[in-house]
Structures are given as C-alpha cells and as structure tokens.
C-alpha cells in the first residue's frame, strides 16, 4: 500500500513537474533561439555571433542599414544559407541541420525580398502549393483580395516576367498568408508596393497575427511597420545592436545622435 502510494505520488509528481515546465515555457513562449550564429563569405564577416530569442505570438520587426545582414539572417532561419557555426532551436528542437523542406514542414515560412518568377506556374498553382493543396478557391480569392489583387484577374495568371515588381510582391505575401506558418518572415514586404495603400498591407499582417498561432517577423525600414511591432530588433554590421519592446527601441531609433537614423535607414511615410 505504501509502495503503491509512493509510486502514484512520484507519477503524480512527474506530471506536475511536466505541467509546470510546460506552463512556464508557454508563459515564456520561446519559439526560436539563435545561438552564436556566425556567417562569413569572401573573407567578410556578414553575421558576427548572433544570439536571438524570439517568442511565440509576437510581431517582430527587424530593421537596420542596407547590407547589415538582415536578409542573410532570414535565409539562415529558413535554411537557405547554412551558418558557419552556431545553433538554431525551433520549438525546443535543434533544427540546425534541417533542410529547407523540413523547416517549411515544421512551420517556418519566408517571403523573399526578390520574388521568384516561374514560367508556367500560375498564381493559383503557387497558392495551392503554399497551402499544402488544402485551400478552397474562395479562400484563395479572399487572400488575393486581402493583398489588393483582384482574384478574377490574377488567379490564372502566370507568375512570370510580365507581372510588375509590386504585383510579384503581393503574390509573394499571398503565398505566405496561405501557408499559415508558425513563424513567417517577410523580407522588406513594402518594397515596390507604394501605390497600394499602406493600410491594406498593415492590416494583412495584423490579421495574420490575430488569426495565426505564431509569430511574424518583418524586415523593414518603414516607420509605420515599426509601429505595429511588439518587439524591434536593430541589426547593424552583422550584430544585434538592440532588441527590445517597441516602446524602448523606437525612441532610440529616432534619437538625433543615432547613426542609423542619420543614414536614413528608417523611412517615414
């Protein structure tokens, strides 16, 4: 009897421990950890010992001067570039050696700074592939209209060189909206879509943030995008210079003696 009680107790104890752990980690909600990431090419140190923790359910904006390594960092998270050293942990799992496909399947998504053109594949094809072939046509249409494209006009268009840069950018965003990843990275989504009212773009991100269980990471120079962030990360010259709540970082970005501001890496709209 005593034995039984002890074993029950220890099982119970284990359960409690697990529960406490999981609720702790839920509270903390760590989604992505980058540990000591280094990346050099052509004798140039592009990323210098990057350490970053990204929490769940967050809207994060990464900003910093051109050439500071923002796109490289995004490619390393997606698995397109391999770091020379360092570790990537996603939802408590070491994914440093995961392929691009594996990372896509466990919930990482990436909208390219320069969208890729495809001779022969249509907008519909790409949205279907993005959704894992599970999307209904009416949902695909809704996504397209969210990014400011008339579905009727675009659904069967080829994603080729006949589309403008802005159209390609919107299709790229639509693909990621269809993919529904736990972590979605957008690399300068605002570039080339100045004609489209900025409010729509912002509400696409806000909707995704509300409806998705996950985090959104936007690489941007736009003040209005910085304004919707929970957290802001400032990268310059391959290092994380600042990482914190929007309320802490924004004043720093706009302070007169900040180099970044002087170099106009922030554009107000």
């Amino acid at each position, binding site marked *: 009897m005593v034995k039984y009680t002890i074993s029950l107790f220890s099982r119970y104890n284990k359960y409690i421990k697990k529960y406490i752990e999981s609720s702790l980690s839920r509270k903390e909600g760590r989604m992505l950890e980058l540990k000591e990431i280094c990346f050099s090419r052509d004798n140039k140190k592009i990323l210098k010992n990057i350490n970053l923790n990204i929490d769940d359910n967050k809207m994060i904006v990464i900003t910093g001067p051109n050439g500071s390594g923002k796109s490289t960092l995004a490619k390393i998270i997606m698995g397109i570039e391999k770091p020379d050293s360092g570790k990537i942990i996603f939802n408590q799992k070491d994914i440093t050696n995961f392929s691009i496909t594996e990372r*896509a399947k466990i919930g990482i998504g990436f909208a390219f700074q320069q969208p890729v053109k495809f*001779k*022969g*594949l249509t907008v519909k094809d790409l949205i279907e*592939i*993005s959704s894992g072939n599970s999307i209904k046509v009416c949902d695909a249409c809704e996504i397209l209209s969210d990014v400011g494209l008339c579905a009727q006009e675009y659904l069967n268009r080829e994603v080729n060189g006949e589309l403008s840069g802005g159209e390609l950018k919107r299709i790229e965003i639509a*693909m990621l909206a269809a*993919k529904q990843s736990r972590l979605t990275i957008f690399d300068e989504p605002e570039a080339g879509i100045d004609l489209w009212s900025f409010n729509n773009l912002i509400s696409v991100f806000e909707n995704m943030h509300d409806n998705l269980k996950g985090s959104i990471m936007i690489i941007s120079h736009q003040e209005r995008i910085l304004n919707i962030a929970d957290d802001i990360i400032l990268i310059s010259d391959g290092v994380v210079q600042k990482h914190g709540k929007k309320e802490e970082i924004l004043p720093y970005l706009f302070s007169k003696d900040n180099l970044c501001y002087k170099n106009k890496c922030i554009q107000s709209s």
Partner: protein
Amino acid sequence: MDKIEKALLKQIADLETIPVGAYNIRENGEGIAKNTTANIDIVTKKNKSGIDIIVKANTKNESVHIPVILTNGGFRDLVYNDFYIGENADVVIIAGCGIHNSTCETAEHDGIHSFHIEKGARVRYIEKHYGEGAGVGDRILNPETKINLCENAIMEMESVQIKGVTSTIRKTEANMEKGSRLIISERIMTTENQIAKTIFDVNLNGKDSSVHVASRSVAEDNSVQEFISNVKGNAKCFGHVECDAIIMGNAKVISDPKIEANNIEASLIHEAAIGKIAGEQLIKLMTLGLTEKEAEKQIINGFLK
C-alpha cells in the same frame, strides 16, 4: 476497343467515348471508325494510304477527330492526310498518334498532313504524340505538316509530344499569303535516350502576314533535342520565334534559329534560351514544403502546360 486502345485514345485525343462531329479513327494502318457531317466530308484516298478531309465554306463550330493508334510492333504506317478548309470556315481538328509497343520491334507512324486553308478560314489544329509499352522496340513518329494559308486565313497549331517517343523528326512548312496568321505552340519532353528534332520553315510571302512560334521543351537523362527554324520575311510582315528549353541530367539541346528578311518592311525576332532549372525556383518551392524532386516536377509540369 480494348483497354490499351481506349487508354491511348484518352492520352492523345482526350476521348473517352466516340467523339461528336466528324471523325476517322485509324488503327495499325486501317480505318476502324468514321463519321461525316453535312459540312465535313472524309474521303479515303484511292491511290495511297490516307484521307481527304473536306470542310465546306462557312462551316462554324465543328470539329474533326482523326486519331491514329499503333498497337503492333514491327509495323510502319505511312499516311497522307489532306485538309481542305473552305472560305470563312472555323473548325477544330484534333489529330495525334499513340503507340503502344510491347514488342522488341520498331513501331513507326509517319503522317504527312497538308492543309489548304481558304480565304478568311480559321483552323485550330491540335496534335498530340505519345508512346508507351514495355517492349524494347522503338516507337518512332515522324509528322510532316504543310500549311498553305490564303488571304486572311488563320491557323493555330498546338503540338505536344508527351512521353515515350523514342525518335521523332517533325517538319512543319508554311506558305503564307496576305494578312494570314500562323500561331504555333510546341511542347516536347524527352527522357532516356530519346531523340527529338523539330524543323520549322515559314515563308511570310504576303503583306501583313504574321507568324508566332513558341516552343518549350524539357530534355532529361541522355536525350537529345534539336530545334531548327527558318523564318523568311518576303514582304511587310511580322515573325516571332521563341524557343525555351530546360536541360537536365546528361541531355543535349541544340537550338539553331534562322531569320531571313528579304524585304525592308519585314520585322523578325528570334529568342532562344537553354538552361537548367533555376536554383531559386527550386528553393522557393522548397520553402513552401516541397522536396527538391517534387519542386522539379512542379516546375517542369508548369513549364510544359
């Protein structure tokens, strides 16, 4: 009809049942089914193998199916088909050849098609080629298409070689009068040790005639493809040839375009590109969850669509 025959017809002519309108189905060198309509006559040639397809002037919205299937190895089928399309007619012609060769001997179909398209008539011509069968015997298809377009006539030709043809030489020749238009779209895929050669000879003889040739092909494994085109502008005319090939494995692709302007008002363009699948296309699709192989397949299917 047995299963194999039905499957071949589905592949080359998208036919599940007997087609509506005029048709002539040929199997292993013999006509096995034929139908004519009030406006479209099909007459079996007397002096040689083949048929005359005669479409009356002003015939609208009608179609002609003339599929050919070969299910016997060791058989060479040579056929002459002549199409006479009357003034202002507007028809769709679906041709194509499917070979099922389970023997070790060669099965070959050489079709020589001549089109006489009268003033103001319009033809959409769809030709699909397909080979299958477990035998080691070659599956050979050599289609020859001769097109005469009278004043303001229009021909749209879609030529598709889907799979499994060991060797093909396809020749297309066009002579074009005033205001006529020719639009050709070609899709070819070769694998293993297959050989495909395409030759286009277009003579833009009449004022304001125009041709547009778009060829897309994929060469895999050890296959060899050759694209030869020769567009002659003999009047005020417009010619545009684009050929685009994806090369994979140890394949070889030769593109030999020629444009010849014999009139100061002739405007001719040629664009040719050969290359492997762009790495960034593969990467993009992989970021959407496809494996590299799946991505490759999507890109090729889209490209040849």
